[in-house]
Each structure stands twice: as structure tokens, then as C-alpha cells.
């Protein structure tokens, strides 16, 4: 997948940008606060509608403008699509070509992006919610309808919690919420389980290459769901689209388990005024040499683990979807040590795909060929030799 043209109007500090990015490496340099991250964020928003930074719409619009416009022409093989997002007031208007998109599920997949920012470096040692977000984003990139289940689960969870916090709990309504939570939560958890199961081998391989000699694993931690009785997924070669398959037995196992767990914890939930178990409390457990990486890995090892997670995410995406997503690396080199940085660039050179990289130090970017270079200064982007 490739972004062949990008047009930006009044987005953050970028008044007007028109660029034709190169098919391989687009290196965006400039001092801090000039707008480098805003440029990669523009690409990210074109793919995901949401941003990876602050969620306030108003802040996306340049200070003296009413409306921000992002437009990208994306190529995938012979397929060409024009995506446009206009940010205005509290809303975002989404267009494909000239058509206004009413359901975001129809839009997602137009531009698939994977982003890697310094914030991601705390993925291993940060809170479980960051790791759940990593999982959800990665799965969503593979199967846009996953968002429907995840958002549905969240809405019902909020309603259930609001009732538990309230003065009166209606037992019948609680039954209804539990059933709805079990149905959507079971779909969410089984998708995550299946994703991690297939993702872990790629992750282990990527980490082995970065940090030879040590072994690393990831598992989906879901204390309410006993998966020991589940049949193992055969270790055949992964085929494209497998994660898209609905595994009915797996889904109903998760739904039954969640239904039972909610019933078991009902008294406690009523006392605490919140839902104490379910996919919203699950975690992605990262282990280094069979010990919790969160507790035992050094900072350097943790960063190498995160790098491996990101690379595995891209690889897995490619094997499932048959093409590489656009990779956005925001000022990552400055946070990696020299060996890890070299590994990252060796990896990028050895694999196809379009990459956007921002940096304050051009010499950290170990790329010489296939580079289109840009400089950003006070919101102006210009291509340089």
C-alpha cells in the first residue's frame, strides 16, 4: 500500500501541504515543534480517522481556521482510492472519492497504517490498557468489523457500571446487560486470543533477530476464561485471512465463560459498583526468558521487545492481508540505542513498503537510497535534495 499524494489544509500548524511521497523512505527532518509529527499524524488520521495523540477535535484545526482538510490518494496494486477527512467543530466528515461515508466501517481499510512513536516504548512496562489498545488496533487493522464488537462491548459496559453505581439495581436489566456483555465480550476476547496465538511466533522470531540468545513470548491473559480445554490450533503455515474466520466454537467458549464469570461476580460487582471482570480487564503478558518482562526486563530489553512487537505487527498484517501497511515512525531513532537503531534500519531496507520517518537528526537515519527528504519549518514542508 502506498500513499502517492497527500494534501493537508489547516491541520494543527500545517497551513498548506501538497506532497507526492516516494514509494519507499520519506524522511522528514526539522527541529522540535516545527510540525514533523503533525505531518505523520495527518497520514495516520487519514487511515484511522482517530489520532494517536490528543482526542480533541478542535486542536486538530489550525488556530485561525474553521476546518481542517486531509486528503490522500492511496494505491494498492491497481486499486486507487481517494480518502478525504474534514475536521470541523466537534465532527469529522469522511469521504471516499466524492461520496460521503456514513458508516466508518466502510471507510477503514482505505489506508492501512502502523504507527510507532516514543510513547509506544512504554508498551511493555506501561499499564494493561496500553497493551489492550495495541491489541485492539492491530486486530482492527486486520478486520474492521472488530471495532463494532469492541465499541458495542464498551457501551454496554458503561451502562452496566452506571446502573451498578446508581441507587437501585434492577435485577432483570442486569440480566440483560450480562447477556449482551457476554455476547459482544466473547467476540472481543476470542478475536484477541486468536490474534495473540498467531502473533506470538512472529514476535518471538523478530525478538530473536534483534536480541539474539534470549527468548520472548506473548500470551493473552484472560483470568475469567479457562482455555486449557480448548483444542490447539494446528501449527500449519499461516494462510491469509485466517484471523478473519469466525471460529464459532472459540467464540461460544468465551461467551459461556464470560456469562458464568459475570454471574459468579454479581454480588461483588454490586458491592463495588463496577464490573470487576471481562475483556476490559484483560492483559497481554510479555515474557522474557519465561519471566514477566514488565518486572524483570531492563529498559534496553523492554525497548527491544516493543520494537519486536511492532515489527511482528507489520509482518503479521502482511501475511494476513497480502500487502504491507504504511509504516509511520515518529522520532523513534533517538530513543533506541545504536545497535537497535541499526537493526531497525537493516530491517526496513530488507523489506518492501512505504515508510515515513521523522527525526531531528538526519544522521540517525541510516538510509541512503530510495529516500525522499523533506524539511519542516514553522509548519511549512518542503522537499530537499
Amino acid at each position, binding site marked *: 500500500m502506498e500513499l502517492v499524494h497527500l494534501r493537508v489544509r489547516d491541520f494543527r500548524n500545517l497551513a498548506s501541504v501538497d506532497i507526492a511521497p516516494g514509494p519507499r523512505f520519506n524522511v522528514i527532518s526539522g527541529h522540535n515543534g516545527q510540525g514533523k509529527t503533525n505531518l505523520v499524524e495527518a497520514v495516520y488520521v487519514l487511515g484511522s480517522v482517530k489520532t494517536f495523540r490528543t482526542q480533541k477535535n478542535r486542536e486538530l484545526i489550525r488556530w485561525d481556521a474553521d476546518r481542517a482538510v486531509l486528503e490522500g490518494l492511496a494505491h494498492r496494486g491497481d486499486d486507487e482510492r481517494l480518502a478525504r477527512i474534514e475536521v470541523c467543530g466537534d465532527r469529522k466528515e469522511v469521504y471516499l472519492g466524492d461520496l460521503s461515508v456514513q458508516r466508518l*466501517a466502510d471507510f477503514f481499510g482505505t489506508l492501512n497504517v502502523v504507527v510507532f512513536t516514543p510513547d509506544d516504548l512504554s508498551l511493555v512496562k506501561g499499564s494493561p490498557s496500553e497493551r489492550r489498545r495495541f491489541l485492539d488496533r492491530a486486530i482492527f487493522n486486520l478486520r474492521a468489523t472488530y471495532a463494532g464488537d469492541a465499541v458495542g462491548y464498551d457501551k454496554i459496559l458503561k451502562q452496566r457500571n452506571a446502573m451498578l453505581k446508581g441507587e437501585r439495581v434492577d435485577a432483570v*436489566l442486569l440480566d440483560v446487560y450480562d447477556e*449482551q456483555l457476554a455476547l459482544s465480550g466473547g467476540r472481543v476476547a476470542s478475536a484477541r486470543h486468536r490474534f495473540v496465538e498467531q502473533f506470538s511466533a512472529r514476535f518471538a522470531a523478530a525478538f530473536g533477530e534483534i536480541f539474539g540468545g534470549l527468548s520472548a513470548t506473548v500470551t493473552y491473559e484472560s483470568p475469567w476464561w479457562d482455555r486449557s480445554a480448548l483444542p490447539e490450533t494446528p501449527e500449519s503455515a499461516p494462510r491469509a485471512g485466517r484471523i478473519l474466520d469466525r471460529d464459532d466454537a472459540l467464540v461460544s467458549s468465551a461467551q459461556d465463560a464470560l456469562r458464568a464469570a459475570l454471574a459468579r461476580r454479581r454480588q461483588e460487582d454490586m458491592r463495588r459498583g463496577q464490573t470487576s471482570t471481562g475483556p476490559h480487564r484483560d492483559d497481554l503478558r510479555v515474557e522474557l526468558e519465561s519471566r514477566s518482562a514488565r518486572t524483570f526486563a531492563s529498559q534496553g530489553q523492554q525497548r527491544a521487545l516493543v520494537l519486536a512487537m511492532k515489527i511482528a505487527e507489520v509482518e503479521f498484517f502482511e501475511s494476513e492481508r497480502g500487502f504491507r501497511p504504511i509504516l509511520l515512525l515518529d522520532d523513534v531513532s533517538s530513543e533506541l540505542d545504536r545497535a537497535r537503531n541499526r537493526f531497525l534500519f537493516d530491517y526496513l531496507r530488507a523489506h518492501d513498503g512505504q515508510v515515513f520517518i521523522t527525526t531531528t537528526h538526519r544522521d540517525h537515519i541510516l538510509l541512503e537510497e530510495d529516500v525522499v527528504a523533506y524539511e519542516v519549518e514553522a509548519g511549512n514542508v518542503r522537499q530537499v535534495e
Partner: protein
Amino acid sequence: MARDPIAELVNQLAKLPGIGEKTATRLAFHILGAPASYARDLAAAIIQVKERIVLCSRCCNLTEADPCIYCGSTRRDRSKICVVERPTDLRAVEATGEFRGLYHVLHGVLSPLEGIGPDDIKLRELITRLQDRDDGDPVDEVIVATNPSTDGETTALYVSRLLGPLGITVSRIASGIPMGGDLEYTDKATLGRALAHRRTI
């Protein structure tokens, strides 16, 4: 306390749904520019609607006469009740001409986040109505036509659990592809649901 009358009118109009400050101002100046009789008729119409429209004591629809035209009719199928969120939904169902039964208007959906529980919508009225089947209508089916939103689904399931013990069939309106629609352009969620709820032909 003497507030500028124009500002006061703009302020009142802007409270209407879908009306912002700009539209409210435009409407206010339109009223100001129209003959005085128009302003009096408008004011009278607004007051009348509040004074003369009541809730039907059976179905909770908005009506001038109680019982309403549907509950009072002798030509409707009294064995079916269609449950809707709002009076405007009732109008939409009625406009199809497909349904000749009775209605029940809930005036909302369950949403604890907004402080709306079972006692805050017209659920008890529905139960009471169905419990009196010996004296009242011989209802054998309740069709729940709340919106296919998360809260609409919750409310539909809740109604079905409440009515289960009464031995009444509770059904849910189907959702799927619009008539004259195109599969290619149907969103994934709707198409997926239409497939899940397919029927034998």
C-alpha cells in the same frame, strides 16, 4: 429583569432540537417581520398543543381524545401491540399500512448513564395493560420496534424478559438491507446482521 425581547425569543428558539444560535436568530427576525396575527397564531398553537394534548391512558401515545384513535378504534387487530420509542416512530410504523394492531409508546429507552431506568419510561403501563387481558385486549403478540441501537436492543431484550412469564409471544422487528438497496453499498454491520437473521424461502 427586563430582557431584550429579541434576545429572549432567540434564546427560547435556540432550545429547540436542531436549532442553533444562527437559525434561531433568523427565525426570530422572520417572526418579527411577519404580521402580528402570525405571531398570535403561533403562540396560540404552541399553548394549545400543551393544553390539549395528553397521553393516552392505554398506549401512552400523544392524543387529544383519550383513548386515542388507535385504542378507541373498533377496526384494529387487538391481539397485537407494537412497542415503539417515540410518537414519531408510531407515525412511521402507521405510515407503512402494514400494521393494523395497537401501539404502546415507551417515551424513551433504558439508559442508566442518562439516569433512565425501567421506572422512567412507560414500561409499567405496558405490563399493567397486558396483565388485564381478561378485561382488556386479548393480546397474544408484542412486537418490539425500538431502534436498532445498543440501548434500543437492551430495551427490547428487557421487554422480552418482562413479558416472558405472561405467556405472550415477543418478537423483534427485522433489520437488514433497505428495499431497492444494493448489497455492494450496504454497510458491513447491516449486511452481517441481515445474513445472521436470514430466513428460509
